[in-house]
């Protein structure tokens, strides 16, 4: 069977099963198994067992449930509410301070929790009533919460980056480092957008809040410390070469437990729930990863991966048109498929061409994560939009999507900035190595 026929069969089965709501992992597994079977009957089936073992037995991927557990412990510790309140107080003199606090709070908190939706929910639950009470425009509030929640997966520690690194055999530490400056840049872009919006239409926000007392400011600074200390310990430990990313994640869990105990949020029930949620999140991710590797094996053995790469190469697209096509592809996929599945579905087909077009694997990883962020804001499957809708008290999804649209545009803009200025991502890892 030619690779073109194989690709056509895979594509039809994949799209049909995905459309009818079959679990994405199962779809990948079915297509992978079908591919292997069409190629050589059941002779290669035993290899699937080896694929499962070699994929799951990964010390790098152990970081995934550990980072999720760390975030779960912190989310249950009550630190999020204090952190947000502290930011709000520290930004008292800034017009639209709470909107800025949404962006900054979500960015920092999502970085730790590893879950954009959990962060949007946690910060949103605290922020939404407060901002409505103070008279903030609802569109601004909802947009900053949905958009801000996306920032976390770019700022390390980032679970999609760990998975990308494990799949393409890249350095987790380099990827984490490469995500720092783009993450900060996107946060600043969001904040600048909010500032411009507020300046052009002051009625969106109330007058600045009254100046807090010195004691309140000191307390606010103290309440931001745990989050800052946790991120510093994790990143510092990794970049100083003291611990591996997986060890940093386990160390982060230990620190999170101490922080939770300090704030009185450490109970047997909380720990048990955090463990349970971490196990489920990890299982969901691993179900996709394991099956994606089976699909990847089928794509490789049937020659589809090589064939697609050759076709793309023969089109003679320059790097920029190829990059534009990639952005459009991920924009469309992100509307329907979650980020990690989207990444695992496309990497086996696109990665060789990406390298052939001269992209640095680390830069591509960062751009991919930025595009995953975009997918969280694009309906009909924008997970952050759903999260914010669930706490908005009946606001329509369309309105939330519209409020988040400027942030989605800024995310696309960052992708192009990264293409034209790759140093934004690559400078820091190179500098740290030097």
């Amino acid at each position: 069977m030619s690779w073109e026929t194989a690709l056509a069969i895979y594509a039809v089965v994949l799209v049909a099963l995905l459309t009818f709501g079959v679990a994405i992992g199962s779809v990948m597994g079915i297509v992978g198994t079908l591919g292997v079977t069409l190629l050589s009957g059941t002779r290669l089936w035993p290899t699937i067992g080896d694929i499962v073992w070699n994929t799951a037995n990964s010390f790098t991927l152990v970081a995934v449930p550990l980072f999720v557990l760390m975030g779960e412990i912190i989310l249950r510790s009550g630190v999020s509410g204090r952190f947000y309140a502290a930011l709000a107080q520290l930004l008292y003199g800034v017009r639209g301070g709470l909107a800025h606090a949404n962006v900054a709070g979500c960015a920092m908190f999502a970085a730790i929790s590893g879950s954009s939706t959990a962060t949007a929910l946690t910060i949103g639950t605290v922020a939404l009533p407060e901002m409505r009470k103070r008279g903030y425009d609802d569109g601004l509030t909802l947009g900053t919460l949905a958009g801000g929640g996306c920032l976390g997966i770019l700022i390390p520690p980032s679970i999609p980056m760990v998975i990308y690194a494990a799949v393409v055999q890249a350095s987790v530490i380099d990827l984490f480092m490469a995500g720092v400056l783009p993450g900060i840049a996107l946060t600043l872009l969001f904040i600048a957008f909010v500032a411009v919006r507020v300046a052009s239409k002051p009625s969106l926000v109330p007058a600045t809040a009254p100046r807090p007392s010195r004691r309140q400011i000191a307390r606010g600074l103290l309440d931001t410390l745990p989050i800052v200390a946790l991120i510093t310990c994790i990143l510092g430990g990794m970049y100083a070469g003291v611990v591996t990313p997986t060890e940093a994640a386990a160390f982060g869990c230990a620190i999170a437990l101490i922080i939770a105990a300090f704030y009185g949020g450490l109970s047997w029930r909380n720990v048990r729930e955090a463990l349970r949620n971490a196990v489920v999140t990890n299982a969901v991710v691993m179900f996709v990863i394991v099956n994606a590797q089976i699909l990847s094996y089928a794509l490789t053995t049937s020659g589809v991966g090589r064939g697609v790469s050759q076709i793309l190469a023969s089109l003679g697209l320059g790097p920029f048109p190829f990059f534009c096509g990639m952005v459009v592809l991920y924009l469309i996929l992100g509307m329907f498929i979650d980020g990690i599945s989207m990444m695992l579905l496309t990497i086996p087909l696109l990665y060789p061409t990406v390298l052939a077009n001269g992209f640095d694997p680390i830069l591509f990883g960062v751009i991919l994560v930025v595009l995953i962020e975009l997918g969280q804001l694009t309906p009909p499957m924008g997970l952050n939009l759903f999260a914010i809708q669930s706490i908005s008290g009946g606001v329509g999804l369309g309105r939330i999507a519209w409020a988040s649209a400027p942030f989605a545009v800024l995310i696309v803009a960052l992708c192009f900035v990264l293409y034209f200025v790759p140093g934004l991502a690559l400078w820091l890892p190179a500098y740290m190595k030097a």
Partner: protein
Amino acid sequence: MIPDGPTGEPAVAPVGRFDRVTRGFADLAGVLLALVVVLVNVEVVLRYGFGSSTLLSDEYSGYFFVWMSLLGFGYALENGQFLRVEALVERLHGPSRDAAELCGAVAGAIVAAVTTYACALTFLASWKYGTHSIQPSSTPLWIPQSVMPVAFAWLVVLYARAAAVRARALLVRRSGR
């Protein structure tokens, strides 16, 4: 009417033995995750505090990770957590929804069945040839690999049950007409 789970997966209310086994697996996975946290932190403390090593932290963290990942599949499935594209399915109601969910459950069962078979072969090969890890612990690999056929076989059972529930719902609707 059979309710749908948070992500539209069949929200088969876990009851009796199925529920106990699935929850038991998830609890065991949670314990293993906690063990990984302890093991990795002990390794770091030993390395920098005592200039020593457990010599098995990386290896056993990997094994525990295999167990916790695979044992969590059933619980994730039962709670409708597996990711899927819901744009069309959410718009379906009645028999068409049941048919789509039945299709998903059958597809899941097929994949899980093939994977169970393949994993059983991997496990048996390690058992038969006495394969050991190349790490200092020289652990017989059939021990950590034993979870693979068990976890996927359990997934087959759960998918088959979900398929049976959907098929029954379809039949009930048809006979109701």
